[in-house]
């Protein structure tokens, strides 16, 4: 794969967690293979986990981005050719802080534009790849029947903003509480080597 400009979004609240270790391994693996990486560590950056009143008011206006961290993140999105999300699945969906990343960063002018009639066109035409990396408490079958909402949000809803030629990739570790150290290490090594490979 050609050298990519990768934004990695990491959403686990505990920096000593397995999920955080996977995020670090993803960043290291990408850099080792020659990609440029910019990390959005939502916990370390103390990213607000909700869209504020002020942001909601500004949404359809001239300047939808008001927070300086969001500004930095939005500039990274402008630069990115690939997006990688590393997060724990909670209630079959994205943790609130990652949902908030979508709401606050992927705003008009950044992710898409509204034309005069309110029709949406994508601004993310440079993004050729979206990758999801997640851990689940539930087993694979249970996730399937519950309809993996986190996956749908990233692989369908977000992808619709990126244009139809964007490729998607999914890395999943199911049944977290019944894995052992060896299985977890196997998954971490696999993801580190294989993301955007």
């Amino acid at each position, binding site marked *: 794969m050609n050298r990519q400009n990768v934004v990695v979004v990491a959403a686990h*609240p*505990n920096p000593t967690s397995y999920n955080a270790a996977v995020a670090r391994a993803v960043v290291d693996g990408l850099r080792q293979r020659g990609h440029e990486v910019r990390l959005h560590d939502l916990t370390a950056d103390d990213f607000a986990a*909700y869209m504020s009143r002020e942001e909601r008011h500004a949404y359809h206006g001239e300047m939808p981005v008001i927070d300086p961290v969001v500004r930095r993140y939005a500039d990274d999105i402008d630069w990115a050719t690939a997006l990688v999300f590393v997060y724990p699945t*909670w209630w079959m969906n994205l943790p609130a*802080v990652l949902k908030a990343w979508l709401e606050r960063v992927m705003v008009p002018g950044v992710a898409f534009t509204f034309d005069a009639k309110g029709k949406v066109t994508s601004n993310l035409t440079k993004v050729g790849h979206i990758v999801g990396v997640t851990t689940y408490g539930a087993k694979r079958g249970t996730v399937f029947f519950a309809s993996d*909402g986190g996956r749908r949000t990233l692989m369908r809803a977000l992808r619709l903003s990126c244009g139809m030629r964007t490729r998607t990739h999914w890395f999943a570790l199911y049944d977290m509480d019944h894995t052992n150290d060896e299985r977890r290490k196997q998954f971490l090594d696999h993801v580190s080597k294989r993301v955007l490979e």
Partner: protein
Amino acid sequence: MNVLVVYAHPYDASFNAHLRDRVLASLNPAHEVRVLDLYGQDFNPRLSQTDLAAMLDGSATPSDIVASLEALQWANTIVFVYPTWWSGPPAMLKGWLDRVMWPGIVYDVESSGRVRGKLHNVTSVIVISTHGSSKLVNVLEGETGRLLFRRVINALFAKRCRTKWVAFYTIDRASAEKRAAFVKRVEQVAQRI
């Protein structure tokens, strides 16, 4: 009947706030009603490292979710009112679910890994949600909000609990007539509780 209304929109001049008000005005006056206004009460939706540790080691629940947990244990019917953003509930509401649905109180995890709900007092859930895009786009996106409430959250309540989905699509381009018709539909749903 104890009716809990959980409302999540950033400002009070919104159509969602109007829907909330119409729900409250349409409820049978014999019901007891409580309202959780997540933005209004500055709810913190971020599940922190401390929260997670407390969930895992059986510590006491954080003080700022006690009122929400009490309301959940009191309610017979829950009505959610929120705008759908990116195919699902706002982060503020998702964070309320992340933080308030506390293991041992709201659910247990069986040895098989299956989640078993404990809130048998809740026998009915109604979700009222507005959408910027059309029903077609929402179906293509996978309707994650609808599935979250109907398949995942519904399992936390009584076995016979059903979650009713009341959705308004294409809100940005809807006529005044369409909006009024939806308000009427919401009032009727609330009256029947």
